[in-house]
């Protein structure tokens, strides 16, 4: 197993954990965490892809990841602001359809 292959597998597993978190947990903050886990999995996959061939690092996935990180932090920041306001307005820390 190559280094890149190892991290590719780790990325796949990380994506699965993220999706499980999204499906199994209902607290808004946990959902946002799970989305970020999923995002990290995608980034890890891209970085691993960039390193597949010996002696060569592909800069395009790196650029995608850097752009992706900024997009992710933006989305997370907005999601947290929305979650805070939602909590302040309703007193709920989860969406109503996830009740019981």
């Amino acid at each position, binding site marked *: 197993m190559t*280094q890149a292959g190892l991290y590719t597998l780790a990325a796949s597993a990380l994506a699965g954990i*993220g999706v*499980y978190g999204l499906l199994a947990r209902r607290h808004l903050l946990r959902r946002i965490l799970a989305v970020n886990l999923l995002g*990290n999995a995608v980034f890890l996959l891209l970085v691993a892809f960039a390193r597949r061939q010996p002696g060569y690092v592909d800069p395009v996935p790196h650029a995608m990841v850097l752009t992706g990180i900024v997009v992710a932090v933006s989305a997370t*920041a907005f999601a947290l*602001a929305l979650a805070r306001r939602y*909590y302040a307005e309703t007193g709920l820390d989860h969406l109503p359809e996830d009740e019981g």
Partner: protein
Amino acid sequence: MGLAFDLLLAGGLLGLALQVVASRGLFRSVVLFIALGLLMALAWARLAAPDLALAEAAIGAGLTGALLLSAYRALQPAEEAADPGPAALPRWGALAAAVLSGALVAALGWAALGLEAPAASAGREALARLGESGVKSPLTGVLLGFRAIDTLAEVVVLLVAFLGARVVAEPLQRAGPGPSAPGSGEPVLTAPLLRLVVPMGVIVAGYLLWSGGHQPGGAFQAGAVLAALGVLLRLTGRLQPAAATSPAERLALVGGIVLFSAIGLAGAGTASAVLAYPEAWAYPLILAIETGLAVAIALPLTLLFSGSAGLRWRER
């Protein structure tokens, strides 16, 4: 030896991720997520992506962590109710979720491992033609040369996130990390330390910016460092939330994007196309754009952390 370390690192990543999802305490999950970000940065350094590692540590772990912690504080009810863990889900539901995620892992792993690396790729072409972009760092070449539109759009994403957060903004006294500690209650070393750290941070950011053309670093890292400074100043109360965005702040928020767009559009006349730079001016123009971008990244992030429309210095 190297592979063993990678194995350990990957195992740690997955273990932390599982803990983030499964842990009973929300606070624990948040902290573990930040730790995960740091491990992730380490993994990327191992994968020959030190510049990404820097960005991940600063933005992915640091800033996201600060935002998460501040939101965690805001979402705590007066009497701490323990978050019901995955047990809240009915057994069949948990099973279905596990099966679905398992299927994803299997399909993704199989597909990703099964892919042959193509002989020709955009990346190889980027390396071959890096000289034409006017910078020496491949990453910067891709971000500000070949795929400049992504970078421009991404800074717009950040601005939009700030604008969106204003739509759902809470009253000022509840916003951001909460009321800052009054100056008198501050640990003794805070003030002198800040006097040291702030100028240092600005210098580091400037260096990162300048060096971005030929070695790891650049606008993102510089922006991240500046944003971290902003967060620090906001946490220690040096910066206070303001109810309105001042004209100067507005200008700083959009200035980088306007500059980037203007130079980009001018490329249609001065160079071959929109978002192309005239050959002789490529490096200085990119540096100018990066400076604008660093501010356009740092300010919205600071404001998003602060949860306010604007910032002002604490009156003494």
